[in-house]
């Protein structure tokens, strides 16, 4: 699950007056064309009238005007700004300012934003050996911020170094899992030896050899793991404060836990970059800013972006939705995320599928949705795990109910079938710091009580929720955690990115830490292997949809809400749109209106 936090930066500047001009809607959708070579510096804001949800499907305040300072703030702090050691969705989004990857996502609104396009590479990967070998060729004219050329060796080194999860514990492990013949505990710092599974026959070519065919390798190539790192500048865990830029901006100031600032990287060549318009001159980020303060500053125009994109808080949300002038600057953005409840078959009587079905039938759909914020900024009632933002998702509803508040008759039928006609007792875990999960748990407690299922609510600290409590099978079983609050955001918008870590029983570890808390179905595992190896996109998407259905047939989860988040875009922002690639506004496209 991509954890998300917020980052804020602010300066002392007072409100800036937007010069955005309403109209010119025709220009909005073509924002991406202003990337790279866009020019003038005297261009002006030109369109995209603000209205509620306008940035979900189009570009608001389209402009090619360069200059100004874009101000971000974060209510917490990054896991790491080292591209090889970060796993926050907003961090991957933000990293496109100072890094480039082999391939990346198109800068476009909505689903089109999840389209893969070449970045450092001249094209998407070319596969051979039935999908086990992937080759990329680098563009000409690529340079680091110090002017040295970016070579395939720099990418090879970057991928190799981040395999060391002791030094870089935060990042994803896809390359660890899929590269061929990675020695146990491999570290570039100790082993001093390159991997045989990554070849660089020349400075422009890099070849990856996998231990199994994988049709979606381009998604791996889009991970920050492939951001080039010059070996002689690598300082291990300290590199996060001195990242050598390959993107349009570079670090000018880095104060751990407080703030950092990006300025233009004059070695970046716009002609090699079809994605980043690089509009602002500077990007300021302030860390650890009070969440309520962030909201107020967004509304007053003292801040441009709340970087974690967790959405405005309850107080600000009420204020925005009540004021038509403010509401038109808000977007209820759909996410590649589902909030749900895992039903633990390791805890009786949930080893019986009918008892699991009883929970699904009895659950109050509306109550669960309300707990997460309602239809605006909370999400839509889910009927399966895969959210509608994932290509190929198919709307299924295997457990239709007579009322959105639950179907007592069907629930009692299921209870009778599982031999518990009078109900039973079990426990429900949730993360104590998350009021929405608590509210959802209470909603479940009330709705399930109507059919005799009595829930004892058990809160646990979120920092250890997966590692020591709900995610540790022995603990969950010992404590009788039959139901467990859960949530998942895709690493990227496709079936593998969403489901692989969520429903594959082989990711469940006795030591804890897995996000799959309940799905233990060998048939699902087999289907995943088939989908991973499928080269045809349409067939692959169908297979992931089948897996989604199979999970629901097993009643392993109660799918609560397909998440949305209420984002606010101050008038100071230009080129604002929600992209499916990183769950929120595409940062690389944003500009600021001149005062």
């Amino acid at each position: 699950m991509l954890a998300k936090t917020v980052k804020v930066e602010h300066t002392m500047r007072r409100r800036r007056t937007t010069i955005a001009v309403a109209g010119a809607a025709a220009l909005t959708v073509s924002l991406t064309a202003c990337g790279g070579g866009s020019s003038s510096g005297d261009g002006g804001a030109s369109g995209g009238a603000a209205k509620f949800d306008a940035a979900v499907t189009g570009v608001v305040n389209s402009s090619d005007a360069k200059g100004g300072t874009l101000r971000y703030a974060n209510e917490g702090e990054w896991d790491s700004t080292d591209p090889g050691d970060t796993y926050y969705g907003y961090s991957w989004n933000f990293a496109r300012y100072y890094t480039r990857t082999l391939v990346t996502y198109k800068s476009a609104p909505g689903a089109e934003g999840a389209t893969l396009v070449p970045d450092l590479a001249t094209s998407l990967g070319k596969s051979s050996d039935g999908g086990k070998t992937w080759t990329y060729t680098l563009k000409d004219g690529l340079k680091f911020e110090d002017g040295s050329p970016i070579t395939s060796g720099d990418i090879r080194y970057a991928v190799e170094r981040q395999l060391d999860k002791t030094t870089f514990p935060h990042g994803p492990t896809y390359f660890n899992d899929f590269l061929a013949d990675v020695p146990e505990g491999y570290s570039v710092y100790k082993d001093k030896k390159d991997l045989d599974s990554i070849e660089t026959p020349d400075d422009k070519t890099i070849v990856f050899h996998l231990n199994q065919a994988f049709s979606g390798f381009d998604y791996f190539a889009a991970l920050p793991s492939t951001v080039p790192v010059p070996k002689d500048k690598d300082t291990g865990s300290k590199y996060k404060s001195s990242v050598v830029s390959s993107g349009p901006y570079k670090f000018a100031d880095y104060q751990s836990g407080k703030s950092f600032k990006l300025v233009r990287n004059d070695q970046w060549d716009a002609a090699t970059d079809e994605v980043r318009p690089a509009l602002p001159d500077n990007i300021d980020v302030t860390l650890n800013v009070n969440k309520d303060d962030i909201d107020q500053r967004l509304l007053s125009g003292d801040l441009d972006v709340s970087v974690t994109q967790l959405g405005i808080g309850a107080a600000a949300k009420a204020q925005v939705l009540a004021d038509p002038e403010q509401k038109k600057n808000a977007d209820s953005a759909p996410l590649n995320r589902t909030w749900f409840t895992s039903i633990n078959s390791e805890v009786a009587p949930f080893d019986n599928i009918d008892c699991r079905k009883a929970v699904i039938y009895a659950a109050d759909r509306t109550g669960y949705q309300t707990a997460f914020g309602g239809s605006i900024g909370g999400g839509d009632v889910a009927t399966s795990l895969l959210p509608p933002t994932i290509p190929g998702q198919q709307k299924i509803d295997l457990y239709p109910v007579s009322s959105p508040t639950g179907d007592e008759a069907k629930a009692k039928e299921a209870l009778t079938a599982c031999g518990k006609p009078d109900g039973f007792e079990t426990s429900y875990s949730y993360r104590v710091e998350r009021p929405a999960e608590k509210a959802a748990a209470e909603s479940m407690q009330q709705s399930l009580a109507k059919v005799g299922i009595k829930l004892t609510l058990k809160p646990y600290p979120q920092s250890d929720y997966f590692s020591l409590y709900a995610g540790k099978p022995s603990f969950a079983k010992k404590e009788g955690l039959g139901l467990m609050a859960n949530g998942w955001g895709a690493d990227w918008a496709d079936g593998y990115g969403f489901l692989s870590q969520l429903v594959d029983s082989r990711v469940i570890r006795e030591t804890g830490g897995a996000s799959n808390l309940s799905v233990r179905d060998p048939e699902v595992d087999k289907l995943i292997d088939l989908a991973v190896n499928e080269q045809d996109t349409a067939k692959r998407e169908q297979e992931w949809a089948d897996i989604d259905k199979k999970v629901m047939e097993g009643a392993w989860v109660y799918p609560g809400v397909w998440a949305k988040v209420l984002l606010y875009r101050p008038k100071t922002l230009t080129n604002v749109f929600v992209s499916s690639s990183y769950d929120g506004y595409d940062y690389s496209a944003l500009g600021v209106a001149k005062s």
Partner: protein
Amino acid sequence: MTAFIARRAVAAVVILALVSFITFAIFFLVPRLAGASADDLASRYVGKTAGAEQVHERAVQLGFTDPVYVQYGDFVKGIFAGRDYDLGGPAPEHCPAPCLGFSFIDQNPVLPDLLDRLPVTLSLAAGAALIWLISGVGVGVLSALRRGTVFDRAAMAVALAGVSLPVFFTGLLALSVFSYTLNIFPPGSSYTPLLENPIQWAYDLILPWVTLAFLYAAGYARLTRAGMLETMNEDYIRTARAKGLPERTVVLKHALRSTLTPVLTIFGLDLGLLVGGAILTESTFSLPGLGSYTVQAISHNDLPKVLGVTLLAATFVVIANLVVDILYAVIDPRVRL
């Protein structure tokens, strides 16, 4: 007097040693007694995808597999001699003496972070303390002298509100009104170092100062008022008046001096505690001081940071206590006995 100070100083060192041991035990011994394994503790400091082997390797690296007394010994040794941490990477990380700990999350020594943030907290505490001392004592004296008047009742009502309203309420209210609506003061997270621009420093901190001072001034006003009312009824005040001393002299020279003794005692302790981190104020105004640092450390389960802050805060409280004890001894020789 020297012996008294020496005794107190030794006691202060013992207290700090005890605080360090107890804090260390809470973080590293209690979880073990509750059944957590070394690997369980280490699982907080690895990525979410870490396997058992990696978790165990991290536990060994962080010393969690050693007996707790060995870990504490290493910690104490680090304070005097520094420590090296091999956490992978090109070279072991060195934490120079005095090493108050090494963040498992940031992979940085804790002390430089603390020293980096200390000026922010000192700035906040000193400015607020000055405001609350002057305003609290001033209002307290006036209220006592005008007992029962509208001013007295209004001042005490405001004082009650000050004590009752939490900083996160008054702070956010102040930001909303003065920063975002009237645009008079800077928004949250504004801080300029004193030496960089003293005027900007003061301008940035006015709202946090006033907000924090409002909380404390209320208590000081009530304390001063009560003390003054009691003192003004003393015989020696009547005598002073009978001798024909001006009322101003009676109040300021005789009554107030006596009243200030307990006020200053509490002031010393309050200031010591605040330097340990005005958590709510710093969090509300997003100031990068020790308080917000503590909140971040707790939210990330970064125990060495919490331990470091605790020790630093304890040091300031103990020093403040020591200073107060010494001042008391100066004022009242019986304390030295």
